[in-house]
């Protein structure tokens, strides 16, 4: 999907709108999906990604990518989302002070859905420790290599291996009962 991208940043920095559009179209969906997974809010996630691209275009003259373009973009989105979450936390904490008994926002699309096991898996991923969750999403959902994940998150490849192992182990243990229920369901309904 993303072949030979080394030239694109150079073209963009020269003001090539076609190259910019190409990058936007190739990455808008995966970047939005990643941001949405972290934020739990599609609209906010897409807003973050759009703003990122607008800023990138505004400052295109200084646009330089040292590693891979993919890692660069995911890193930029990751940082923007973390910033957003920090801002939301300040606001939330503030509102909690203002108004008592503010109910927790229900996460849309959580646990019990038609596709039950997928729902359970999604919920379990959401409950992974923060670093595990980021690493897992980047690997499984966005198909990034360990090296790319390390670049995005600013950690070592060894740490990525570590966190992936931890993520899968945690998911396996947490989901054990549902995984083993599955054959029973099949027996019942077939």
């Amino acid at each position, binding site marked *: 999907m993303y072949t030979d991208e080394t030239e694109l940043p150079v073209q963009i920095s020269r003001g090539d*709108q076609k190259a*910019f*559009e190409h990058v*936007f*179209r190739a990455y*808008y*969906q995966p970047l*939005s*999906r990643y941001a*949405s997974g972290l934020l739990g809010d*599609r609209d*906010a996630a*897409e*807003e973050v*990604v*759009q*703003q990122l*691209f*607008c800023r990138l*275009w*505004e400052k295109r003259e200084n646009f330089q990518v040292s590693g891979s373009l993919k890692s660069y973009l995911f890193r930029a989105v990751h940082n*923007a989302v973390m*910033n*957003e979450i920090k*801002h939301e936390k*300040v*606001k939330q*904490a*503030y*509102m909690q*002070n*203002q*108004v008592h*008994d*503010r109910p927790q926002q229900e996460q849309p699309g959580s646990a019990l859905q038609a*596709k039950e*096991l*997928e729902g359970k*898996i*999604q919920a379990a*991923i959401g409950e992974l420790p923060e670093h595990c969750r980021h690493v897992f999403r980047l690997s*499984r*959902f*966005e198909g990034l*290599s*360990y090296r790319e994940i390390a670049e995005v998150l600013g950690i070592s490849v060894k740490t990525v*291996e*570590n966190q*992936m*192992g*931890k*993520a*899968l*182990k945690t*998911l*396996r243990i947490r*989901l*054990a009962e549902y*995984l083993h229920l*599955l054959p029973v369901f099949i027996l019942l309904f077939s």
Partner: protein
Amino acid sequence: MSKPDTDHMDELLAKLLAGEATAEEQARAAQWLDEDISRREAFADLEKIWEKSGNIAADYSADTDAAWEKVKRKMNGGGTIIPLQRKPNFMYRAAAVFAFLLSVSVAAYFIFGREQAAEGLAVTYKASDRPKNDTLADGSRITLNSGAVLVTSENFNAGKERRVKLTGEAFFDVAHNKEQPFIIEAGEKTTVRVLGTSFNVNTEADGSVDVVVATGRVLFANGNDSLILTAGESGHYDPASGSLAENENRDPNFDSWKTHKLVFNDTELEKVVAILNQFYRADIRIGNGSLRSMRLTATYENESLEHVLELLRETFGIRIVRDNAQITLEKDSVN
């Protein structure tokens, strides 16, 4: 088997699934799995999780075309960046908005529009029909209430201070920077000066300004007076007297525009009506003097005006009389 060993195997199996395992590692994993059926079962579980979680990603689809159109408009200058030397091109809006923006761009021109400042253009942020989050060039986060407009100074992030002009209401979460104080021109005569903190500023059309501080400290000043506000405190500028004062009682509804929640705690009906009128942009009046001092304790969250009126009717046993857009609360003659 020891725990570090299983941890290591989880890493190895993860690599296998993620396609990161070398040939040597694949062989090692295969051997480890062969040794024990329970390992194979565990790996089968992992494979199932891996496969199913792939569907989750496939379920997400974004409207890339629509998003690209939006971004393209902004790229071509139709959206948020308006050089103040040029005639602003957003004057086609509704009359009220027109007047609003005109006053802002005129004010902004006088404050920021210095002749020699050709580079580092002023940036305008605005929220039209619903609250909007944005990030300024210095990393400060803002949430603009609908109708609010914020204009940064030229060279906003390059001078010895960060200066912005606000019309309407906004929540600020200012990036800390001791070297460059963040100054908000709120209304015609007051400024809010901060180093790095979060707070809400509301400028009203009549010239009054309210500041409520969430974290940190804020200096709230007009020409001759100033007020230091700390977390949890709020200040009010009264345009009639030209004075600043710290509010005794914080308005629990000052951020209802963001929370969609109205809180009344033993509040007089007269005040309740004023708050409802502002929040719903309604025209509610109290028809009978004796109703004014009735008190309401209630919390409404995401309620329509209709429903709130119905609740008031039930709570106080009053009548709701409508005459076009005007709503009058009347004492029920039966009671």
